[in-house]
């Protein structure tokens, strides 16, 4: 379940990075240049962290409540 928290990050990041690739490939392949890709890659990572934080918080809380007797 600790691994699951990182699994969720991987799913989110793989998704955003994949959307990035799919959009560049299908919509505008001309955007495959280093400057644009640097920005896009950074945004994919930042977006993934932002989406992951609330999920990680809820899952960590569930873990503490169910496995470590956190009374809430």
């Amino acid at each position, binding site marked *: *379940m600790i691994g*699951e928290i990182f*699994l*969720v990050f991987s*799913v*989110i990041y793989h*998704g955003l990075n*994949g*959307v990035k*690739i*799919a959009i560049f*490939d*299908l919509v505008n*392949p*001309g955007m*495959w*240049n*280093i*400057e644009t890709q640097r920005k896009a890659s950074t945004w994919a990572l930042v977006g993934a962290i932002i989406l992951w934080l609330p*999920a990680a918080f*809820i*899952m960590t809380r*569930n873990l503490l409540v*169910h496995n470590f007797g956190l009374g809430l």
Partner: protein
Amino acid sequence: MAANVTSQAVKKESVRVAQGLEITAWKWMRYSGLLLIPLAWIHVALQDVIVGVHAIDITYVEMRWRLIGWRIFDFLLLAFAFAHGMNGLRQVLFDFVSGENARRRLSWTLLILWLVISLIGAVAIIGGVAIPEN
């Protein structure tokens, strides 16, 4: 020199690509990937975050699968996610396996593995849950 070339904007050129199974697979990696955003993310948000693995048992699955919509959802997720994953694995393994014959054997092995596990999943989704009486 190569670094200078790549840092410039890509010159637009239309290229003719030979049609075939590999091109179809390449396109479908993009299509299925986009489709998997709602499918996989809803699945993860629901099962891992909102419900949580502590609360998932056979009763929960039985309740969830009473709605045909969730069975269709799970079936689509199984079909697209697993095919997407297997093809991705194939691409990664191709980076390490060279040679026409070896790659062909590898592709067939993965296809059969995909088919067998997909069928087991399909049997589960169609067959549903029978809660043992005790």
